[in-house]
């Protein structure tokens, strides 16, 4: 059932919703289906013509809180803007990280070892990924229809090549590749028209997520020029992960004896149980009713758990959003939020999978995240909150779900009287590729498609 929010009449809508692409605000439906398509533009005129054909089919975020039909989202990489013939002054106005592309930022992203770009799958890291086109839907038939519409625009269109098309979703219970309900916590955006859900905290200034509006410090974040290109747009990051289900299950079996103990250990790694119920509210056993209730499943803080006895300081969701955790470093957590539109691909999680062959079955996550400074944010997260534990006094420990683990890596489970340090935690999600994109407003898409 798709969550239908009600508009908050008390809070004025200050974002130009009819110019922002729908996917920036419209939540992932439940159940969800869709397809990601990666395109290469071989000829600038053809590329612009493709944008002219696609743009009328791209929904805006107007009344985004209503249950909706399927929708399309279009985003363009730096090499894509270049291939489309965007003039040099505009190209130069993009930030360095976006211009370099995700592969060239591997040092900043700490994408080394197995995650290094030289190991990435084609077409990632080649510079050929120019346009990302995603179709989202809440039903099978609407999904088929929207994919047909999209294909009609780009298929057999000379001057544009399809590099990859990946279906996603269709997961039983919408569980992710490790068998967890995901995508629960989202940043509340001021002026978007809907009141925050319990636990989301106070609305964050729109400019942190959409260009052209004041950010948390009062000034708008820098955007590309001319104004028509940047305004109402946002940056999108894509990171495709392969989930090593066999490794994950072997780890649980090695460090816990009974099914209950394994589920508790897994919950300590994630910060939630499989149902989505947060450890902060259900410290001992899963609670499916809690996990399924959006009014309750995110309504918690960490003030009463300063040492992580309920929710380990290094658990995944506590790292990704520390909330009111007392951090070792002076931090404003509201500056590091991203909107998440992740999608699961491949066969569902298999609790019996333990072999190395199971690790190779193509299954995992397309981690999609958006903000007005998404490249800077993901680089911060990767350096400070994922591949380091310094910010919570955990030295070199890394995120147990998406961290790149070194040899003999440790995960600390705080306990009384003495903490338990579990050795030999592995990398459970391996990066297979990624890219930085810009998601233009509808005006910008029309402007980009024009012949000048």
């Amino acid at each position, binding site marked *: 059932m798709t969550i239908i929010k009600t508009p908050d009449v008390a809070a004025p809508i200050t974002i130009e919703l009819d110019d922002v692409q729908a996917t920036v605000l419209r939540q992932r439906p439940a159940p969800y289906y869709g397809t990601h398509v990666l395109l290469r533009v071989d000829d600038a005129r053809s590329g612009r013509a493709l944008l002219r054909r696609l743009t009328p089919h791209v929904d805006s975020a107007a009344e985004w809180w209503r249950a909706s039909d399927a929708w399309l989202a279009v985003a363009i990489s730096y090499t894509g803007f270049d291939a489309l013939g965007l003039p040099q002054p505009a190209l130069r106005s993009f930030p360095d990280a976006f211009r370099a592309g995700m592969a060239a930022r591997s040092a900043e992203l700490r994408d080394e070892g197995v995650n290094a770009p030289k190991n990435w799958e084609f077409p990632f890291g080649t510079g050929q990924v120019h346009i990302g086109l995603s179709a989202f839907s809440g039903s099978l038939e609407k999904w088929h229809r929207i994919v047909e519409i999209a294909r009609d625009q780009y298929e057999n269109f000379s001057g544009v090549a399809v590099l990859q098309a990946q279906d996603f979703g269709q997961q039983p219970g919408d569980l992710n590749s490790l068998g967890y309900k995901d995508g629960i916590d989202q940043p509340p955006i001021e002026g978007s028209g809907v009141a925050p859900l319990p636990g989301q905290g106070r609305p964050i200034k729109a400019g942190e997520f959409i260009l052209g509006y004041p950010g948390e*410090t009062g000034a708008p974040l*820098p955007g590309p020029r001319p104004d028509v290109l940047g305004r109402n747009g946002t940056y999108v990051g894509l990171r495709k992960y392969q989930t090593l289900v066999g490794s994950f299950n072997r780890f649980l079996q090695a460090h816990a004896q009974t099914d209950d103990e394994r589920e508790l250990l897994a919950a300590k790694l994630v910060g939630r149980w499989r149902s989505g119920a947060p450890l902060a509210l259900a410290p001992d056993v899963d609670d499916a009713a809690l996990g399924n209730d959006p009014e309750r499943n995110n309504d918690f803080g960490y003030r009463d758990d300063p040492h992580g006895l309920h929710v380990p300081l290094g658990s995944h969701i506590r790292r990704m959003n520390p909330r009111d955790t007392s951090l070792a470093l*002076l*931090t404003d957590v509201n500056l590091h939020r991203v909107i998440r539109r992740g999608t699961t691909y491949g066969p569902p999680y298999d609790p019996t999978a333990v072999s190395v062959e199971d690790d190779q079955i193509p299954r995992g996550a397309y981690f999609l995240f958006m903000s007005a400074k998404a490249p800077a944010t993901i680089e911060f997260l990767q350096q400070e909150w994922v591949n380091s534990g*310094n910010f919570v006094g955990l030295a070199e420990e890394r995120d147990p779900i998406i961290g790149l683990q070194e040899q003999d890596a440790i995960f600390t489970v705080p306990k009384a009287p003495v903490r338990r340090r579990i050795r030999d935690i592995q990398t459970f999600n391996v990066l297979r590729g990624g890219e930085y994109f810009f998601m233009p407003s509808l005006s910008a898409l029309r402007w980009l498609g024009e012949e000048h």
Partner: protein
Amino acid sequence: MATQVQPNPHTHADVKVEEHLAKMRELFADAPEVGKKALENVLARLEAQASLNPPPPMESAGRVGSRIGKVSELTIIVPFAPGGARRLRAFLQLFGGNLAGADDVGTVHDMRFVFLDNDTKMLFATAYDGDWDAYIDDFASKIPDFLDIIDSAWEGWPGIRSPEAKDYLAAHQVTAEGWYVANDLTVAETRRLRRIGEAVDEFLDKVGDA
């Protein structure tokens, strides 16, 4: 009887070392005598050490600056605004020269404020944890006034809230050519290890007394 094992003169690594040392001699040809003699004294040692594991090289700290392991350096040289030196000196003296409020930042190892050329410019240098870009926005959000009191002593400082602030810092920053850090430990790690060390000593004392 021990025999001296000579490194194989034909390994690629050794050829590189020999090239480097030959270049050093060339560069020092017009050095002051004191330097030339000193170089000759150490060359043999340098040659021997070069075949062992070299130390980890300096990396970039991000936009500007150098980093070794987890610790980065930031060195800024900047002209004072009119009256800036006088104001900043007085502000520093309020705290006995020790801006210990930086304890709360959690990433700052040290800071130095050095006034140069008759109070016309200054050098600001700090060792800190992580990359250049990482926490600047957080500082601007949490301690903007503290930063502006200090930085407004600098000619043309736009204010920490300005979108030009980062460009100003980068424009006045000089990346170090050499950087050495004794312990690859962050401020947070050091504080934790000190607490643990004290606890272990207390524990051992009790065991020892029993």
